[in-house]
């Protein structure tokens, strides 16, 4: 694969480290620590990821390059990458 780091441009796969699902958000601290939902929310955050057969928004780390994390929208069957973007921006493209 050739992955476009939003800063460094197209770079070889071996420069990157895969960091998983970009759609999971770390749940904010609950107002009430005794909140029962919180365990479930927490379980979901730690253990449940998007695992689609198709377009997937994910985090990559340009570990052998600029060492920045960024987002990529990649197809899990064809490995086509529709878009990459800094963490703060939205991904476009793909059929998602």
């Amino acid at each position: 694969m050739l992955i476009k780091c939003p800063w460094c441009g197209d770079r070889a796969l071996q420069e990157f480290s895969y960091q998983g699902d970009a759609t999971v958000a770390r749940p904010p601290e609950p107002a009430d620590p005794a909140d029962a939902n919180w365990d479930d929310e927490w379980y979901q955050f730690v253990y449940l990821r998007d695992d689609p057969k198709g377009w997937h928004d994910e985090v990559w780390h340009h570990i052998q390059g600029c060492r920045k994390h960024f987002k990529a929208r990649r197809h899990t069957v064809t490995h086509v990458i529709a878009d990459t973007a800094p963490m703060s921006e939205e991904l476009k493209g793909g059929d998602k």
Partner: protein
Amino acid sequence: MKKYSVFSLARNALDYHENWTEAWRSPEPKPEYDVIIVGGGGHGLATAYYLAKEHGITNVAVIEKGWLGGGNVARNTTIVRSNYQLEGNAFFYEKGMDLWRSMSQDLNYNVMFSSRGVINLAHNDAQVDAFQRRGNTMRLNGIDAEWLTVAEIKKRAPLLNTENMRYPVYGGLCQPKGGTARHDAVAWGYARAADDRGVDMIQNCEVTGMRIENGKILGVETTKGFIGAKKVGVAVAGHSSQVFQMAGMRLPMETHVLQAMVSEPIKPALDTVITSGAAHCYISQSDKGEMVFGGDIDFYNSYAQRGNYPIIEHVVTAMCELFPAFSRLRLMRTWGGVMDMSMDGTPIIDKTPIDSLYINAGWCYGGFKATPASGWCFAHTIAQDQPHDLNSAFRLNRFETGHTLDEKGVGSTPNMH
């Protein structure tokens, strides 16, 4: 079923083998079954076989979207062992070893299970410690394990490099009864034996939906139409996330691609199975002569049965470090399979929150060896509607309660398991 033996082979030779019959039928699906097993891989087929054999449930269909045994069972490096550290795993895999030992005779199909020993190389002191801990656990659990010195390892694998290398070999943990088996034969043998007991093998039939009413499963939607079932067991390995999504379930699992490869066939040059965690490589020689080897997964989520080059380079490099003479062999073919990597590296065999729907998943890249035990336990779980003692640690809710079984100790990073 026509019994296979050297006599039947000789008899048929006289007829130029024109009178053999099909190993399994290809029936059209019935409208309803007592049990439907989704996934015609090793686990699905074994489950169907043991449902029939151990529980007398024969009105069973195995539904396979492609060709039987075309998933991971067709593409794994065939290593069979039970050298686990954690209690929840050990006895399960050892049950598997028992079943492996008599599988050919039980199925009347030679699966070429070859007890040639599996050696884990230790490349530093910490690994010696860790492997000895594991070996001792195995022994105390009643599982065969031996510690081998470098000289003893050299004797079993004369071409192995132990000294002139970046990470020299300090010793190795050997499971003498571990080994390899002919992967395709395992699938075919179970299919033939299950067919013989009345199980329907439905190929080229993809499950596309689950019919669930009032929290109970009634059957599956497929490319050949709806098929009803009293119970449904799913054993689709790399497609677990996909199939359970049809039941509205999210699994603690990610799908990743693992590659394996073979060299050109050569005369016997390696008589045992060598694995090296430090070098990230495991290797054995098939009966046909190829060196069969693999290593790490590709690290990114993938449903493609094909990977990319960096891992191949990495695995081949490790292989040559272990066997510098094999540097002159040639890589003949590489391929990939997609794996259901669970969040703690351990499988799940359990009931689900949906009545009469059962799960068998999360095998990561170690489920081939589990094929018989998995089928046996899954059949029990389905038939009795509760897990057997042997798979009692493989619960679906263990992540919520914190009872994870993390052999590698890397936590909820599936691509590290």
